[in-house]
């Protein structure tokens, strides 16, 4: 406990002196000891997403927990906004969106705004308002409108939530804490979660103050045929194109021989 108070004191001083930036340094906190059921997800031929279970020890008994899953890479997406042109609905403008995390999931023991202040949430980038802060919009085509930022942000969240790449859940059933100490939960990685490194960070708070922090790294990568096809098609397109045509020709002729007059025209 004494150590914690020292941390708070230091944090407070840093906070007063250094302004908002880097006032809270998670790495300096008491470690939240965690374990993941695995650290590597392999995308093979029959991959249909995966889930990883996490177990951890709350450093301060009864402290609130917020656990965040983010992709190391941020997303660069082009979002088109549909509008009415005559009787038709078509894309009327397009935004290049950068800075938003590719994947963003949070499990917490209570709603985030009941655990920490908006300032702390913003600083530790916990919750959708913080995602919005990080997001950059650049109009690529069409005419900007004042409510575009809100519209595009909401649209992005909706797309991501639909793909199960974003969600925020404050449910004791999803994040079980036994005796205020031992916690367990799982994150689901949907098939759309592409190759890369993902971070699972556990934040412990008492009275709105950060008291513990832990981190796990999860890696997703394609293996075997999936990895090979992706690599060839993206990096050696000429070879891939010729191969695709030759394989199709071969398969077609083979099928024709098997069925005598098969296929279609």
């Amino acid at each position, binding site marked *: 406990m004494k150590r914690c108070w020292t941390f708070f004191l230091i944090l407070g001083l840093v906070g007063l002196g250094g302004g908002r930036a880097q006032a809270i340094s998670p790495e300096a906190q008491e470690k939240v000891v965690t374990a993941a059921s695995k650290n590597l997800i392999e995308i093979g031929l029959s991959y249909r997403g995966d889930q990883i279970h996490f177990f951890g020890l709350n450093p301060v008994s009864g402290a609130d927990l917020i656990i965040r899953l983010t992709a190391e890479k941020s997303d660069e997406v082009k979002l088109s906004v549909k509008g009415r042109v005559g009787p038709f609905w078509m894309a009327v403008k397009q935004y290049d969106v950068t800075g938003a995390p590719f994947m963003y999931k949070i499990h917490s023991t209570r709603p985030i705004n009941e655990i920490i202040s908006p300032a702390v949430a913003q600083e530790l980038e916990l919750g959708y308002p913080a995602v919005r802060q990080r997001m950059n919009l650049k109009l690529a085509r069409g005419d900007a409108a004042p409510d575009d930022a809100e519209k595009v942000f909401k649209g992005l969240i909706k797309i991501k939530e639909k793909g199960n790449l974003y969600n925020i859940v404050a449910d004791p059933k999803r994040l079980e804490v036994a005796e205020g100490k031992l916690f367990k939960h799982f994150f689901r990685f949907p098939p759309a979660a592409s190759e890369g490194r993902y971070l699972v960070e556990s934040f412990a708070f008492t009275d709105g103050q950060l008291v513990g922090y832990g981190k796990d790294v999860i890696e997703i990568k394609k293996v075997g045929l999936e990895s090979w096809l992706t690599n060839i098609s993206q990096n050696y397109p000429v070879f891939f194109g010729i191969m695709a045509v030759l394989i199709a020709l071969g398969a077609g002729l083979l099928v024709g021989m098997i069925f005598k007059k098969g296929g279609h*025209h």
Partner: protein
Amino acid sequence: MEIYLPIAGMSINFFVILGAGGLVGFLSGLFGVGGGFLLTPLLMMIGIPPAVAAASDSNQIVAGASSGAFAHWRLGNVDFKMGLVILIGGIAGGTIGVQFVKVLRAMGNFEFVMKVVYVIMLGLVGSAMFMESWRTIRRSKSGGAAVSEEIGGAKLGQLFSVLPLKMHFHRSGLHTSAIFPFLIGVTVGIMAALLGVGGGFIMVPAMIYIIGMPTIAAIGTDLFQIVLTSANVTLQQAFVNKTVDLLLALILLGGSTIGAQFGAIAGRRLKGEQIRILLAIIVLALTVKLFFDLVLTPTDLVSLAPAKGGGH
């Protein structure tokens, strides 16, 4: 049984894709038309990104048409000279089409243009076929003999025979201008890139009714040029848009091959005009569905504009 498609970047039930291929194969076996124009929209409906659907469909057509083309070539039904002229047009059209797709994708309106072209095409083909088969059914009920509809086309054929750049097409027994076959090739090539179709459903009627080729030579030549045009589109899509999902194409091929066998069996039990009116109804139903997609308020106003690389 889920399977992960590397380029589409999604996990999907293996049997759903096999079924989609099978359904289209069944219809093409039944109706004797290519299934490309049905397959791409079907793939989009099950969630494959439009650009990947079109490109992989082209790849599948290469396989699907090659067996038929090989059989017709052995039977001597391919007019290589005619095929070559159409092919030159097809390659030009396919190349233009792929660049067109690239520009449209960058503008974020690829899906819109694709659907509009589909609605127009399917609407025209569907209504024409419906009316033609309806007339045939009524005529056969009233006992009159079916008359072929070549009268209008034959006049057009005469018109094309006075155009310059005359060529002799030995297999088809024609001496006509090369301009029109070339233009058909260009049109079909553009459509092949845009829609992922082989173009047989336009090409064959055009060759029979407008150019005046014998039916069997038209089908053989059509298949020959479809293999090469689709191969060109597949290559271009792979080079420029990197959206060919080989795995998807191969599963579709498996499905369509099996489906085509059953379709051919079913086809022998139905009359020609019954088959055609059935196809017309399917085509028109699809047209109506796509049309409503264009005019009804979408549930999501903000959507992902496909980025380079197809899946994500």
